[in-house]
C-alpha cells in the first residue's frame, strides 16, 4: 500500500494527490482526446455519454453530496434546452451568451424550487420535485410561442464565434471541454467550505445546523448549482438530439438520472461519470443484444433438438422485440444495485483497489455496513 508523505501545506491544496495520480489523469485525458479517431462509429453515443456526465455531475452534487434526492431533474434539463434554443434561434443571441443565460435561468428556477423545498425533508422533497417536473412538462406542452408545443422544435447545429460544430467529432470536443470544466469546478467547490457544508448537511442536518451551517443558504445553493449544471447540459442536449419535444423531459428521464448516480456510486464524482457511461451505453448494448441473444439461446437450446431450438429462438425473439422491455431492464438493474452493491460501480472499483494494495490482508468487513434500526420521527 502506498502512503503519501506530506511535507508541506501546498500538497493539501493540489488538485491531485501526487504526481502518479496526476500522470494517470493526464493519460486519461490523452486517451479521451484520441477517442474520436478510435471509435468513429460510436461518436454519437460518446457525445451522449459526455452530456449525461454533466447531468450525473449535477444530480451527484444534490443527491450524493447534499443528500437531497430530486425526481425532477429532467425538468431542469428541459428548461435549459428550451431557454438556450429560444435565445439562439428566436432572440438571436451569440451561442456563448445564450448558454450562459440558459444556465443562469435554470439556476434561478432551481432557487425557485429549492426555497420552498427547504422546509421539507427526505421523501417530501422528492415528491415535490416530481410534482414540479410534471407541472413544467405541461408548461412545455402549452407554451406554444417558445416551445412550439407538441409539434416540437428543430434545433440548429452550434456555431460559436463563426466556427461551426456541426460534425460529431467537433461537438465531442465541445462537450468534453464543458464536462472537464464542470468536473474541475465541482471538485474545487467540494473541497471548499461550501462542499464541506453540503456534506455536513447530508450526514446530519441537525449536527450541521448546530455547527453553524446555515441550512437555508446552503441547500438553496446546492439546488441552484445543480440546476445550473443541468441547464448547461440541457443546452448541449438540445444540439445533441436536434429536435425538442415536451414528452422527452418526462418522469422516466428523471428516473434515469437517479439510476445514473446510484449505479455510479453515490457521493463520488467518479461515480457520476461511471454512471453516465453505463446509462448512455446500456441502450446501445441492449439494441445489439436484441439482434444476437435470440440466436444464441436458440443455438444453446437446439442441443435438445432442432424443434426446441427454433421454438426457443421464436419465444426469445418475440420477448426482446417488446417495446416495454427497456425500462424494465433499467428497473431491474436499479433494484440489483441497491440490494447488492449500494456503493455502486465506484464502490466496486475502490474495493478492487483496496484488495490489490493490501493483497493478502484484505478483509470483507472493511466495507461492511452497520445495521440500523428504524425509529420514527413522528410523535404519534
Amino acid at each position, binding site marked *: 500500500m502506498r502512503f503519501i508523505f506530506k511535507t508541506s501545506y501546498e500538497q493539501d491544496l493540489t488538485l491531485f494527490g501526487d504526481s502518479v495520480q496526476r500522470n494517470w489523469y493526464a493519460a486519461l485525458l490523452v486517451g479521451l482526446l484520441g477517442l474520436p479517431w478510435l471509435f468513429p462509429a460510436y461518436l454519437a453515443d460518446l457525445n451522449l455519454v459526455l452530456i449525461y456526465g454533466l447531468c450525473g455531475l449535477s444530480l451527484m452534487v444534490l*443527491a450524493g453530496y447534499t*443528500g437531497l*434526492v430530486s425526481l425532477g431533474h429532467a425538468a431542469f434539463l428541459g428548461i435549459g434546452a428550451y431557454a438556450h434554443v429560444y435565445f439562439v434561434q428566436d432572440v438571436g443571441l451569440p451561442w456563448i451568451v445564450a448558454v450562459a443565460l440558459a444556465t443562469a435561468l435554470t439556476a434561478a428556477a432551481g432557487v425557485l424550487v429549492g426555497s*420552498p*423545498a427547504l*422546509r*421539507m425533508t*427526505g*421523501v*417530501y422533497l*422528492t*415528491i*415535490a420535485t*416530481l*410534482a*414540479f417536473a*410534471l*407541472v413544467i412538462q*405541461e408548461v412545455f*406542452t*402549452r407554451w406554444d410561442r417558445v416551445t412550439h408545443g407538441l409539434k416540437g422544435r428543430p434545433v440548429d447545429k452550434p456555431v460559436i464565434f463563426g466556427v461551426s460544430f456541426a460534425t460529431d467529432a467537433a461537438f465531442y470536443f465541445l462537450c468534453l471541454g464543458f464536462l472537464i470544466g464542470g468536473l474541475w469546478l465541482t471538485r474545487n467547490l467540494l473541497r471548499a467550505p461550501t462542499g464541506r457544508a453540503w456534506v455536513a448537511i447530508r450526514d*446530519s*442536518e*441537525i*449536527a450541521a445546523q448546530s455547527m453553524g451551517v446555515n441550512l437555508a443558504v446552503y441547500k438553496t445553493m446546492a439546488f441552484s448549482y445543480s440546476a445550473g449544471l443541468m441547464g448547461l447540459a440541457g443546452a448541449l442536449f438540445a444540439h445533441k438530439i436536434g429536435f425538442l419535444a415536451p414528452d422527452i423531459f418526462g*418522469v422516466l428521464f428523471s*428516473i434515469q438520472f*437517479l*439510476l445514473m448516480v*446510484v449505479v455510479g456510486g453515490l457521493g463520488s464524482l467518479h461515480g457520476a461519470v461511471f454512471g453516465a457511461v453505463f446509462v448512455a451505453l446500456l441502450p446501445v448494448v441492449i439494441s445489439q443484444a436484441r439482434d444476437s441473444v435470440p440466436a444464441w439461446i436458440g443455438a444453446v437450446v437446439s442441443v435438445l433438438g432442432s424443434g426446441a431450438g427454433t421454438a426457443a429462438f421464436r419465444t426469445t425473439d418475440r*420477448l426482446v422485440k*417488446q*417495446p*416495454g*422491455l*427497456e*425500462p*424494465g*431492464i*433499467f*428497473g*431491474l*438493474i*436499479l*433494484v440489483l444495485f*441497491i*440490494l447488492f452493491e*449500494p456503493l455502486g460501480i465506484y464502490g466496486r472499483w475502490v474495493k478492487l483497489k483496496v484488495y490489490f494494495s493490501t493483497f493478502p490482508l484484505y478483509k470483507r468487513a472493511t466495507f461492511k*455496513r452497520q*445495521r*440500523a*434500526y*428504524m*425509529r*420514527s*420521527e*413522528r*410523535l*404519534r
Partner: protein
Amino acid sequence: MLNGVAVGCIYGLVALGFVLIYKAMELVNFAQGELMMLGAFTCYMLVVWYGFGYWVAFAAAVAAVGLFGAALDAVVLRRVLGQPQFAVVMLTIGLGAIFRSFASITWGSEIYTLPTPFSARTTRIGGITVSHEYLSIIVGTIVLCAVLYAFFTYTKVGVAMQAASQNQLAAYYMGIPVKLMGSLIWAIAAGVAAIAGVLLAPVSLVDTNLGFVGLKAFAAAVLGGFGSIPGALVGGLTIGLIELLSGTYLPQGFKDVAAYLVLLLVLAIRPQGMFGTAGRKKV
C-alpha cells in the same frame, strides 16, 4: 360532481396504500400505482380470458396481489430495512418500472375495458342520476377505510404494527414479530391497491399507464398528511373535486396539473398536511 367524488375516492384508496406502508415502515412506496395496475390486469384476465364471475375474480385478484406484496417484502424490501430512505425510494421506483414492463410484455399495450355487474346501470337518488360504477367506488372506499381505521385502532395486530413503526428495536424487545408485521402491512397495502385498481377499471380503462394514477395519489396523501388514514381519504376527495372544478372553470391544461400544483402549494405552506403531525428529529 359525483364524478369528482368517485375519482377522488380512487385517489384516496391509492393514497391509503401509501399511508399504510408509511405508517408501519416509515417508507414511501413509489410502486403503489403499479400494484394497482397489476390488480386491475389480474382481475381483467380472470374475468375475460378465463371466464370467472366478477366477484370471484375480484377476490382472487386482491388475494393474489396481496400475496405478491407480502412476497415482495419478504424477498426484496426486507433487505433494505434500516437503510436510508433514499435506498427504498429508488428500490420501489425500480420495482415500479419492472412491473410496468412486465405488464406491457404480458398483456400488451392495448387498452381493455373490464365488464362488471355495475356497467351501464343507474339509480336515481334524490333527483340526481348516479351510475352504479361510481356508486361502487364510493361505497367500497368508505367501507374499506372504516375497516382499516378500526383495524389500526382497536385490534392487537394493528397496534403492534404502529409500535413497530415507531421503534423497531423496542417493538422487537416487546415480543412483536417486526418482520412479519412488515410483510403483513405490505400484503394489506398491495391488497388495497388491487381493490382500487379493480374499482377504477370500469371507469378508466385498463392499460399499462394506469400506474400513473399513483402520482396523483401522492398529492392526496401529502394533502391529508402522510400517516393519517382519514387524511388520505379526505385528501383524495379534495384532489378529485379540485381536478373536476379546474377542468370546468380554468383554462385547458390546468386539469392535468391541478393536483400537482395543489401538492406543491401544500408542501410549501403546511408540509405536514391537514391531519399530519409535525415532528422534529431527535439526535
